[in-house]
Every structure is written in structure tokens, then in C-alpha cells.
């Protein structure tokens, strides 16, 4: 029996990022999934297909498991009880916060935004992109247990060769909500509930910058033809053209899609830091010397309004739509 590895589930249905984490987790040990909410039958079945042996609903007597600190403590206590050697999560702002609290409570080493995971001399190790994707660093924890968050799209999600039936159970843990801390309100954004995929997890991202002059119709048209998420730059958020969580970059969302198309975006280092992990980069810009054009795999020099609209039309034709 290999040692237990915990994967934290941040929602039901499962996000694509979680399936990627599960794909990596299988290579490390016996996978146990922990969820702060009860998990539906369909999801339990999917978890079995991804090699999860047990799904545990985590509850705490003295805490409401919404605050990152409380969830983190709870997951850490479960990890302790289950004698897990690794705790793995996806990489979003909320899950990174939870990861920090898990690592703190376990006194464990913390790896953030890694693209793969393996054991290095019995310690959890992973690689991370740095400095706008220009460097690869490989790090290992020095503690017996390790905590890691995995950057989206670093690996392809793949079901296990032999599906198993995940056993469903519950685990009660010790956790406390910091005194006086309260979640007053939570509003899911429309864009995350409608047809378009969520930005951080999208396999294809079409981003528009200041070169749109506020008209995002061509950006949306191409995004819809490609089934892509829509992103933008901070300048456009400042202008109020799109909400803050559409901002791609160092202080926005980090994206690592299969395909990133940036239109009317100059490619400031702040922006590049958030998208340079994209596998294929396409730029559309009137300026052939814009930094984003120079780092692209394919670039069109031209007015984005016509280029994106024409591209969308050709793609719809190709798809027979």
C-alpha cells in the first residue's frame, strides 16, 4: 500500500484543474479526495475514474469552513489523521490561501504554482516557471510532508487506466474561524456561470487590450467561435471596460492555456507574467514591434477589429457553423 496523498476539491462539479491535479496525484500515492461540501454521486464516479480510492466530506464542529484559515486547518488535521504525505490543490487565489494554512498547521514545505510533481529522495518536489516564463526552477520540500498547488493546464487531465469505485465517507476535524471574521456576501459573476469557460481554467483565451478602444465585440466574437474565455489588461479594467477578474497578469489571473490570442495588447511585463506559460501565443497588433508580437508564435499585423472578425468567420465556416 502506497502512502496517502490528499487532493482538495474546491467544488462540485469538478473543475478541470482538479482533474489535472488528480492525474498528477495518482503518480504519487493512494489518492484521497477531501471536500468541504458533500459530493454528488456523479462526481464520486468521476473521482473513481481518476483513481481516487476515498472521498471524504470534511466537517468541523466549531467552524464554518468558508474562511481559508478554517478550511486550511481542517484539511491539515485530516492530513494528519490520514497520515498523508502530500496535500495537493489547484492554484487560484482562494486555494493558495488554503494551501498556506495547511502548510502552516502541518509545519510542511509549500510549493506554489508547480507544473509537475514527483518524489525527490522521498520528498515532494515540483517545477515552477519564473520571471515571466523565462526560467524553470525545480524545488523540493525539506519536510516529511509537502503541500503544493498546481498551475492549470500544466498537464493534460487523464482518467486512470483502471477505474475504481471511490469509497465515500466523512471526517470531522478541528478547525476554528478567526474571531470576528465573517463572509458578508458572495456573488458569483455571470461570466462564470454562462457559456464561456472560466478564465483561469480555459484551454483557449482571447484577450483584448487598449487597442480595442473599449469595443470588445470582435474579441467576444472570436472567443465564441473558439469556445474561449475572454481576458484583458489592467488598463482596460481601469477604464471600466471589463471587470477586475478578467485581468490577466501579475496582479490578475494567471492563465496557461493551450492557446492565447492577445489583440491590441502591447505586452507589458506585468501582463506577460500572467500569460507566458501559454503553449501557443498569437498576437494581433498594428505595431509589428510590440513586445507581445515579438514573443508570439504567430502574429498578424493589422487592425484587430477586422482581423478578429474575419478570423471568427473563417473558424465558424471551418466548423460548419
Amino acid at each position: 500500500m502506497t502512502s496517502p496523498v490528499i487532493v482538495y476539491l474546491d467544488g462540485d462539479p469538478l473543475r478541470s484543474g482538479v482533474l489535472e491535479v488528480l492525474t498528477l496525484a495518482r503518480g504519487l500515492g493512494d489518492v484521497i479526495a477531501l471536500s468541504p461540501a458533500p459530493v454528488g454521486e456523479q462526481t464520486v464516479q468521476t473521482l473513481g475514474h481518476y483513481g481516487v480510492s476515498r472521498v471524504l466530506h470534511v466537517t468541523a464542529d466549531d467552524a464554518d469552513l468558508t474562511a481559508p484559515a478554517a478550511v486550511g486547518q481542517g484539511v491539515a488535521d485530516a492530513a494528519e489523521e490520514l497520515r498523508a504525505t502530500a496535500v495537493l490543490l489547484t492554484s487560484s487565489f482562494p486555494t493558495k490561501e488554503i494551501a498556506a494554512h495547511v502548510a502552516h498547521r502541518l509545519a510542511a514545505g509549500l510549493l506554489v504554482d508547480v507544473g509537475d510533481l514527483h518524489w525527490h529522495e522521498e520528498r515532494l518536489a515540483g517545477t515552477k516557471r519564473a520571471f515571466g516564463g523565462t526560467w524553470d526552477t525545480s524545488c523540493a520540500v525539506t519536510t516529511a510532508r509537502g503541500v503544493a498547488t498546481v498551475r492549470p493546464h500544466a498537464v493534460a487531465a487523464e482518467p486512470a487506466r483502471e477505474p475504481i469505485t471511490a469509497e465515500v465517507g466523512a471526517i470531522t476535524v478541528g478547525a476554528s474561524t478567526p474571531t470576528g471574521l465573517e463572509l458578508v456576501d458572495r456573488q458569483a459573476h455571470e461570466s462564470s456561470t454562462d457559456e464561456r469557460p472560466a478564465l483561469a481554467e480555459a484551454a483557449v483565451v482571447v484577450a483584448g487590450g487598449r487597442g480595442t478602444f473599449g469595443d470588445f465585440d470582435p474579441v467576444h466574437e472570436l472567443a465564441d467561435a473558439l469556445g474561449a474565455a475572454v481576458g484583458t489588461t489592467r488598463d482596460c479594467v481601469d477604464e471600466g471596460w471589463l471587470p477586475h477578474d478578467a485581468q490577466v497578469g501579475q496582479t490578475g489571473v494567471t492563465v496557461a492555456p493551450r492557446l492565447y490570442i492577445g489583440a491590441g495588447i502591447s505586452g507589458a511585463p506585468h501582463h506577460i507574467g500572467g500569460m507566458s506559460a501559454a503553449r501557443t501565443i498569437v498576437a494581433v497588433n498594428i505595431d509589428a514591434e510590440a513586445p507581445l508580437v515579438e514573443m508570439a508564435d504567430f502574429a498578424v499585423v493589422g487592425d484587430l477589429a477586422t482581423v478578429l472578425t474575419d478570423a471568427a468567420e473563417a473558424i465558424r465556416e471551418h466548423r460548419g457553423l
Partner: protein
Amino acid sequence: MKHVPELESARGFSPEGRTVRTTEDGTLNEVDENAVEAALALREMSPESSDAEVVAVTLGPATAVDAVRRALQMGADRGVHISDDALTGADYATTARVLAAAVRQLGAADAVITGMAALDGLGAVVPSLLAAELGLPQLTVAHEVTYTGPPDHMVTITRDVAGATETWRAPLPAVISVTDVANSPRLPKMKEILAARTKEVATLTLADLDLPADEVVPRTEVLSVNQRPPREGPELVTDDDGNGGRKLAEYLISEGLI
């Protein structure tokens, strides 16, 4: 706050896997300016604490004191620079532990405010670790911060994360981290730049913080660092003939991206 390599500079690692830091290419982590601004604004929002002190704290090698200096120019009252050879290779856990020790030594802080992430490492986990070390509630990745004053001393923040807008509330003291859109950092005026020169910056070692060396052993180590090959440059087409969009579609199809 953190002293980081300029984004525009050729950033990289030494063979030991440490970030290369120089005086010329170093700067105060830009979103930490938003943290300083938030601290100054918080003081201004609370007339009852108009005598409250804003203290800028950093951890890093000798050059890192420049980050504190910048905060002093913006209006922070004094600075603390923690520097100790034993901290070379400090990871997230060590950094948070040392910063927490400094906060404790300063005495009852009303609020601990940071930028949401350091633009070199982009981990965005130190604020959470700091909250855990200090046993304080955290109000993080805030793009809006409001304070209600006495008797509750309640801080309310909003944040846009993972496809939702959340509003969180906690009484002070708390750990707050702010985004780059939370406010517009004030530009220091000449008078303040001159005044900052006379403000005190204490340099502290681990011994000054009563932290035994075995409490700051990093929990992670760098195994290797490798520069990635530069991208080859684009296959470039121009839309002069009005075929640019179609060529873009053809490229995506030929690469199997559709």
C-alpha cells in the same frame, strides 16, 4: 514590503538558485506601494488614531533598505530592515515567521498591510502565512478597503477572486493584503523626499528578534534553475491584403488548435 528586481530588467537566478538582486535594477515591489497607500489612508480614515504610526518593514539583503526608503518618502514614519546572513534562501514560511516576529516586537499593531503578491515570486501566500503566524484574521486580495472606526474598529474588504465578488469583514487587528487597483499610491513630493532622509530605519538581525536559527530553517530547497530557450520569434503576416484574419484561422487549424 519587498525589494524586487525591476520587471524590465533581465531577471534571473544565480547558480545557487537565488534571485539575482542589484541596487540599480531593484525597486520597491510595485503593489507594496498600494499597501503603503492603504496604511496611510487607514490612518486618515480614523481621526481618533491620527497619532498612529505607519512603520515600513522589509526583510532582505543590504540593498532591500531602498524599499523601506521609498515607503518613508511616501509618508511612513519609520522603517525596519531585517537583514541576516542566516536568512539567505528564506522561503515563504521563514519569511512569514520573521516578519511576524518583527510585528510582535513592534508591539500591538492595529493592522498589518501588505501587497497581494511580490512581482518576482508571485506566490501570494505570505499574507496568509503571516495571518496564521500572528493568529489574526486575514482580509486578502482586497480591491476595496473600508474602516468603520470605534467602537468596533471593523474593516470590510471586497475582492474579485475565482469568478466571484466576495465581501469579508473583521475587527482590527487584522492582516490585510491589497491589489494594484485598490488605490492610487501618492507620489512623494520633494519636501517629503528630503524629510525621509532623516527618518529612522532600524536594522535588525535574528538575534534582535529573539529568533533562534533553528526556527527559521527553510522548508523548501531549490534543486535546479534553468533558463528556458528564448522563443524563436513569430511567423508574421500583415493584413495589408485583408487576408490576415483568414490566415490566422488557417494557422490555428493547421496547428490543430481548433
